[in-house]
């Protein structure tokens, strides 16, 4: 389990935006994951996608790591942002764009 936690930690530390999702960004396998991919694509940022369906250890590990029961899960600069509901709300309110600007991931 520690190995999985270390792997997760490494991913979120080494990639600006990480999406733990079902499927991958080109072929999402669930509507909620697809929505998150769409949102970040719309904002024009690159994402590191991790397909939890390929690794049951990661699928369970990330839930423990984040203390959050659902997939997808979004990390921006190592910080947990939430799942698709939160991403959608933040996107619609403009907060998500603002966050990415603050983190220097998009130009203002």
């Amino acid at each position, binding site marked *: 389990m520690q190995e999985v936690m270390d792997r997760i930690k490494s991913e979120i530390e080494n990639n600006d935006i990480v999406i733990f999702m079902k499927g991958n960004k080109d072929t999402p396998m669930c509507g909620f994951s697809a929505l998150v991919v769409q949102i970040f694509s719309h904002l024009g940022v690159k994402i590191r996608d991790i397909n939890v369906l390929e690794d049951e250890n990661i699928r369970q590990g990330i839930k423990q790591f984040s203390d959050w029961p659902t997939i997808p899960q979004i990390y921006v600069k190592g910080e947990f942002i939430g799942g698709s509901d*939160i991403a959608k709300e933040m996107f619609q309110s403009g907060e998500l764009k603002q966050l990415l600007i603050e983190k220097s991931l998009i130009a203002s």
Partner: protein
Amino acid sequence: MPIDPNKIIAMAKDAFPGDEVKLIDMAGDNNHFMLEVISASFEGKSRIAQHKMVYDAMKGKVGEEIHALSVKTKIPE
């Protein structure tokens, strides 16, 4: 085995006594739900913290008997 939606409502009401709780079956299959909770206890908390309160109210069933649960939290006007 999909969960009885009344159970979800009961757990939510248990965790948010007196607050308004709404459950919508998103896919008509008893497996994809949207749970809306309006509670003053959300005040001052981040979205993540608010949603966590709702997930915690489900006592570990999300991801198990409850396949998908969308959460919407509001603070009463």
